[in-house]
């Protein structure tokens, strides 16, 4: 058995060139094969790729989909995002527990099925949803859970699960998934008809600098959240010194409530790879990497096939489309369950086979990125925009939208609305107009930009969605009148507590403290002074954190404190006696009473 493990793990390492930087691929394969990356496997890996064993453990222990201890052949990961909770997660979770006879975090006694929670898997428009290994199951109900578990027990093979098929490419053999695209509104850029490869042909007919200028003229800004001008990013990367350069596509889409990149990857993979190839040409890269979140592994076969077809058509490879000397190819790097890997420097760390820790900046990726080489990291939607800009021209692209935010944006809308799904709207749309469109008449609050964005109330519905007002990477979550906004804030803090990489003090410790104080308030033990406390702590976390995660993680608390202050105020009250409300004197003296073997004469019932 042990010898068997050694040879198989050695084989896996060898197939990855015994290359330490391929650590993610190695540990993912070992996990898949053995249901764990055991202590023995870590030893073998460290010997094969020549690193310390604690370095292997360092990586394995970072990612939620990897584990040192043994997991079942089938792992059910139920998404516990806020939207799933609103869609009836609790009875579904109970049903799983009942059908499997285990609690979350446990494996059935026969060692075959593991049950876990996982944060947002990008299926908010069809919640509650879960992953069964790589397969996605959606619209869960207690009945469906019953059927699902019975089905799994027949074969313990997620590929054989019986389900109806989703629309579009979800129904193809390569995806074979029940996921719905949920495209509600097609705009002019991403989901309209387009002339495939026209953008690439136009790009290759001019110089890389001209391509960058066209992107600059279109005033394209990053669609991943930060909104950095794409043309400028490419100019820096092109100008940076280095013989090798890389373009990385960020398909980590982890921000709770965001699922628009999922739909692009399903229906517009060619457009994405076209944009990426144009980017490679513009910055002078020969390699591109698509960093695909582990949760979207069900799309991998489709994406690999699209890449293969593109190679066959000389859209990738050597002297692309006859352009002498332009060689470019794209590979896929799978993630393994870590929201932080969507942060561009953490994404690079992960591609390098490291923990998904963000890197110290400077140097920035454009100067020293993947493997120390100048790299441009771009969002999926951004790269699609590039393909369209090169096809139709900068002027066409910027025709719609607002002044500082030209063109359209994909919005992933979910929560308390009748028509959840993906909408492509010109920038500058008013929140109130958006709410009408998605069938949300009585929204108490709207989350714009995911939990790292803002939670706004009706006073702000006249504001617009664009970079200069309400910026968003795409997530819009609607909350109806009956939702408790303090509880919602606390649930989003759970997410950040879980997903902090743990590198820096404020984010690692501060978020836990914010959550503790919110729980205290929800528990009816909060005092008015706790509200100032939350604010001061939140501001310290924002100001001192090392990366965008910590710099935005207090936002659910700070924006609800500002916009839903009364929800907090109704829950706090001054302490009745001289003790802190959280301090239970009777409980505190109980231990001593038991030691002294007599009751306290002062603090009796």
């Amino acid at each position: 058995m042990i010898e068997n493990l050694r040879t198989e793990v050695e084989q896996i390492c060898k197939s990855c060139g015994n290359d330490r930087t391929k650590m993610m691929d190695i540990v993912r394969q070992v996990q898949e094969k053995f249901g764990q990356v055991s202590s023995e496997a870590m030893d073998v890996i460290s010997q094969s790729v020549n690193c310390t064993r604690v370095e292997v453990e360092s990586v394995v222990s970072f990612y939620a989909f990897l584990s040192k201890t043994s997991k079942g052949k089938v792992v059910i990961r139920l998404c516990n995002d806020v939207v799933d909770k609103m869609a009836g997660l609790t009875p579904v979770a109970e049903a799983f527990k009942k059908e499997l006879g285990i609690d979350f975090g446990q494996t059935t006694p026969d060692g075959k099925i593991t049950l876990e929670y996982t944060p947002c898997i990008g299926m908010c428009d069809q919640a509650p949803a879960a992953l069964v290994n790589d397969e996605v199951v959606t619209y869960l109900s207690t009945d469906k859970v019953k059927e699902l578990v019975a089905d799994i027990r027949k074969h313990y093979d997620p590929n054989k699960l019986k389900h109806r098929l989703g629309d579009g490419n979800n129904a193809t053999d390569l995806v074979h998934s029940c996921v719905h695209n949920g495209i509600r509104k097609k705009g002019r850029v991403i989901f309209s008809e387009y002339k495939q490869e026209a953008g690439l042909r136009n790009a290759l007919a001019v110089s890389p600098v001209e391509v960058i200028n066209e992107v600059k003229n279109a005033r394209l800004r990053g669609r991943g959240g930060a909104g950095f001008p794409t043309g400028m990013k490419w100019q820096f990367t092109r100008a940076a010194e280095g013989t090798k350069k890389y373009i990385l596509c960020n398909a980590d889409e982890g921000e709770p409530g965001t699922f628009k990149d999922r739909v692009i990857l399903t229906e517009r993979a060619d457009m994405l790879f076209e944009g990426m190839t144009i980017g490679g040409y513009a910055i002078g890269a020969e390699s591109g990497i698509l960093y695909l979140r582990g949760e979207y592994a069900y799309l991998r076969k489709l994406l690999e096939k699209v890449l293969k077809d593109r190679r066959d058509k000389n859209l990738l490879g050597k002297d692309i489309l006859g352009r002498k000397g332009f060689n470019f190819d794209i590979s896929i790097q799978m993630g393994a369950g870590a929201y932080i890997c969507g942060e561009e420097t953490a994404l690079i760390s992960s591609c390098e086979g490291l923990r998904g820790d963000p890197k110290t900046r400077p140097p920035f990726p454009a100067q020293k990125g993947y493997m120390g080489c100048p790299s441009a990291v771009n969002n999926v939607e951004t790269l699609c925009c590039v393909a369209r800009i090169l096809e139709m021209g900068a002027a066409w692209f910027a025709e719609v939208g607002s002044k500082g935010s030209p063109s359209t944006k994909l919005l992933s809308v979910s929560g308390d609305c009748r028509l959840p799904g993906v909408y492509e709207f010109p920038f500058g749309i008013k929140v109130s107009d958006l709410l009408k469109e998605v069938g949300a008449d009585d929204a108490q609050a709207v989350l714009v930009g995911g939990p790292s964005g803002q939670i706004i109330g009706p006073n702000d519905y006249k504001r617009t969605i664009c970079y200069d007002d309400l910026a968003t990477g795409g997530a819009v979550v609607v909350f109806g009148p009956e939702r408790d906004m303090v509880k919602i804030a606390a649930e989003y803090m759970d997410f950040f507590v879980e997903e902090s990489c743990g590198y820096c003090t404020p984010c690692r410790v501060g978020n836990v403290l914010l959550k503790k104080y919110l729980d205290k308030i929800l528990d009816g033990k909060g005092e008015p002074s706790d509200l100032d406390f939350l604010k001061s702590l939140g501001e310290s976390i924002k100001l001192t954190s090392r990366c965008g995660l910590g710099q935005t993680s207090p936002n659910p608390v700070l924006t609800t404190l500002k916009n839903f202050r009364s929800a907090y105020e109704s829950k706090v009250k001054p302490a009745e006696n001289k003790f802190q409300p959280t301090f239970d004197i009777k409980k505190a003296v109980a231990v001593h009473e038991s030691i002294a073997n007599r009751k306290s004469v002062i603090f009796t019932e």
Partner: protein
Amino acid sequence: MSDQITFTIDGVEVKAKPGQTIMQAADDAGIYIPRLCYHPELTAHGSCRVCTVIVNGKPQTACTQPAAEGMIVENDTPELLEHRRNLVDMLFVEGNHLCMFCERSGNCELQAMAYRLGILAPKYPYFYPDKPVDSTHKDIFLELNRCILCGRCVNASKDVDGKGVFDFVGRSIDKKIAVNSDKNLKDTTMAVTDKAAQVCPVGSINKKGTAFKIPYGSDIEHKK
């Protein structure tokens, strides 16, 4: 003149050599910027965030930010003092920093920083972690409940000792230091003479037989 950078810290003009960080330039100029994870002989880690300063209006850590011509750095301000106190408070409650029972008391950089910032007792609730103490090594014991995840031991062991005895495992609040063995410190190549044994700022990596070595009154905070 291009090999000389001039900038200001709290209005005082400071000169830096190209490639120097704000921290290095400040140290050379005799201006103190509070810090915890930073160690002058090791790669800057930038994890404690105590050396956060405001550079041209934006927060940056002095230990990682290169000095640049004309930059305006704010260091000793009431706002930053408050943020730094909050950070040190967080580190206190995250671990079991009960100074009166700690053999490093008086020789601890976290304790000294608390005194310096005027913290008498942490304002947050203690987390009380419960990690096992590793006293298997003949010369060293690990009390990781006091670790502030500064990364000094990791970098020292990798870069100076060339051993890689330590690394981080886990993430979020569960992130912690682990040793390069499935067992204990004694099963690694760690030696008491290693750089990694000299650099821990707190009572987490300790040499045996040195408890309470620094007499009160001559400890770090009284010297400064």
